[in-house]
């Protein structure tokens, strides 16, 4: 987003509550958006005034888009794009330096038979490796200079149930270790309690820390749509994140089911499209969790194309948060090129 002028009271490390000022809006936002965050009550009215989401119609459109038949060259192009959009993820308590380093090497070269540095039908590298903050340094070492980013979940991921101080320290650890992207979680407890201002404050606080870093990092805001439960809530959370300065809207942590579904991704895509129509600013989208097959990925890309627009068909503007998806994409890529399926055992484990 644009330069973020945060007042001294909300600099990183300062806990703020829902009753504190929500002022200091983006100077470039249109008045109706700039004024939306003036105080808690105004923000609540703004969110309540967003058009509702009708679940029947939303799911019907998602189901219709899922019937698109993507074949031949358009399929191969989609597979390559999807590979280049993967945030290759490991988020386990058991993540060791060795595991993370292996994953990072796989991110650089998902198909060793067709290395991304090769010529001809070389398989692209993924967009990023996504790890916990204390594993960022390991991943960053491996991908340094390659163009593959390191993303890190921070802010007491996945529950987000800690103090703002702890969350910001988490973000700083990730940034200081070399993270290019921060995947924060919103406070769903605050959201469901109706404390929208608190949710916004925390996003802004994290954004301020991210912005104060190297200046290149981007902020993904995880809504954890599975816990927000209704599409109306998802849309409101999208707008809080957009007003808070999100560079990405992200569906899920992957730790809660349901995670990314086609209808939920569609709500996010509609939000970023509406945001661009109203502000001129483009924001990226990242569905995460539950996308395991090439078919799933292509269905998401069709939704990106037809709901948000082809401008989002780019790793800068759309990502897949996934672990096993990459293996299927590589297998299907080989099948497209060779005309037959390869032995899954020939796709390397991370």
């Amino acid at each position: 987003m644009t330069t973020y002028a945060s007042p001294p009271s909300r600099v990183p490390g300062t806990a703020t509550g829902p009753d504190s000022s929500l002022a200091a809006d983006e100077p470039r936002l249109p008045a109706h958006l700039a004024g939306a965050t003036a105080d808690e009550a105004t923000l609540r009215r703004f969110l309540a005034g967003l058009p509702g989401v009708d679940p029947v119609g939303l799911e019907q459109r998602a189901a219709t888009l899922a019937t698109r038949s993507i074949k031949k060259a358009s399929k191969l192009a989609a597979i390559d794009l999807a590979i280049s959009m993967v945030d290759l993820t490991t988020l386990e308590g058991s993540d060791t330096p060795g595991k993370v380093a292996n994953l990072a090497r796989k991110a650089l070269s998902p198909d060793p038979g067709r290395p991304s540095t090769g010529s001809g039908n070389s398989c692209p590298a993924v967009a990023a490796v996504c790890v916990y903050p204390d594993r960022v340094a390991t991943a960053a070492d491996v991908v340094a200079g390659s163009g593959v980013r390191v993303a890190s979940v921070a802010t007491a991921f996945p529950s987000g149930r800690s103090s703002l101080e702890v969350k910001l320290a988490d973000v700083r650890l990730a940034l200081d270790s070399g993270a290019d992207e921060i995947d924060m979680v919103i406070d769903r407890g605050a959201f469901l309690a109706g404390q929208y201002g608190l949710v916004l404050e925390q996003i802004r606080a994290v954004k301020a820390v991210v912005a104060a870093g190297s200046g290149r990092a981007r902020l993904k805001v995880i809504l954890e749509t599975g816990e927000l439960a209704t599409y109306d809530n998802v849309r409101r959370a999208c707008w809080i994140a957009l007003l808070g300065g999100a560079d990405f809207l992200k569906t899920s942590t992957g730790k809660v089911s349901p995670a990314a579904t086609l209808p939920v991704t569609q709500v996010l895509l509609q939000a970023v499209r509406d945001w661009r129509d109203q502000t001129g600013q483009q924001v990226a989208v990242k569905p995460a969790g539950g996308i395991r097959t090439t078919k799933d990925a292509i269905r998401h890309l069709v939704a990106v194309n037809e709901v948000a627009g082809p401008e989002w068909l780019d790793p800068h503007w759309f990502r897949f948060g996934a672990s096993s998806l990459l293996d299927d994409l590589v297998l299907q890529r080989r099948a497209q090129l060779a005309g037959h399926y390869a032995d899954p055992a020939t796709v390397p484990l991370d």
Partner: protein
Amino acid sequence: MTTQTTRTTTPNPLSQGWTYAPAPESAAIAAVKDRYLPFVDGTFVEGHGDDAVTFNPGNAEPLATVSQSTTGDVDVAVAAARRAYEDVWSPMSGAERGRYLFRIARGLAERARELAVLECLDNGKPIRETRDFDVPTAAQHFFYHAGWADKLGHLGLGPAPRPLGVAAQVIPWNFPLLMAAWKIAPALAAGNTVVIKPAETTPLSVLVLAEVMADAGLPPGVVNVVTGAGDIGSALVNHPGVDKVAFTGSTTVGRGIQRSLAGTGRRLTLELGGKGANIVFDDAALDQAVEGIVNGIFFNAGQVCCAGSRLLVQEPVAEELLAKLEARAQTLRVGDPLDKNTDVGAISSVRQKTKIDELVASGADEGAHVWRSTAPVPDRGWYVSPTILTATAGSMRVVREEIFGPVLTVETFRTPDEAVAKANNTPYGLSAGVWTEKGSRAMAMASALQAGVVWDNTFNRFDPAAAFGGYGESGFGREGGPAGMAAYLEDGS
């Protein structure tokens, strides 16, 4: 800090536009024969009229030759239906009739892919619709009505309502197979026999349905299919040997049928034209309202009697909604009906395309602003790009007359009362849609709207269990559900 638009890599080529490779369904699946025959008394027999040719609207090429029935052939068909009614079908137990209907439903499901492709070729509608809507819904109608066959005593028409006799049924070209199912299934479940005439431009899927019925072992004469144009339809509905007439088609023809049947004592149901209002309030779920508007007018390229062809939008959201609607309509993929990614296929006949083009031109002449999708359209075949007419007024022909094409008119309103007044300001009364997040308003609108079907936050949804039919010049009688069964039974209570 960086802005969101800062980036270090070159954009992916797909972000400049992603062209889906053609994904055509194979025409061979339809197993189109060179020549088709009418189905009378359990066998496919030569008609005594001159052969007619049916065309593929997708490329304007001849598809097949169809032997045509004469009025003499209609006599034979009605006589066969009478014999079957008296000797076999009406004495048969309801449970036994139900078994035949279940068998027909399964037969349709088994030949679903073939029928979907055939309907696509003969009618021009996209394969996505025939595959996902027309054919499965036709099968559903047989499944649903099979269940009624042995439960007629529970319809509220007395303990043992009696069938009417021979039903003459004339169906249109916009949903050939589905309309046949709508009409045949309840007639048979109630114990009637049928002589049905499909439209002259789209007879093929009904003749394959006849094969399915023959394969199901349906006794000869229970269902007969005659072929031909309006003269044969007229001979059929006016035939002294029929007891019940069911017609779906234009209001002009329906009016003529009602006139000629007056005083004959024959039962009549008519499902005619429409000019459905789709009403969007300012508190609507706008993104889904846009989907509902698109579905309401571009489904089957607007060749739907219950199409939501008049958009009424509340002024505070009119600008925002129209911008979203035009952007969405621009994403519709117009073209080869056989391509699985086609959203809007061909217009079913060159005559219909000419009529649509003429009406759009009249709208422009009368001062409407014409928006048209710029999506590419094939060179051959009969296509009309999705069209939205704004700055329209209630006096314009495009607002008064049924266009029966992918053409939406847009008017604004200020209050619920004004919306009702505008929606009801038409001689038709088949369908309407209401878009609001406020339930009490939706219910009040449903009561006030003079339309046989009012959809709340959706449009063009059909279910065999739900009654469908119109008010005023949209006809009378209901199809589907218990009310649809009642149209084929004597009330014995």
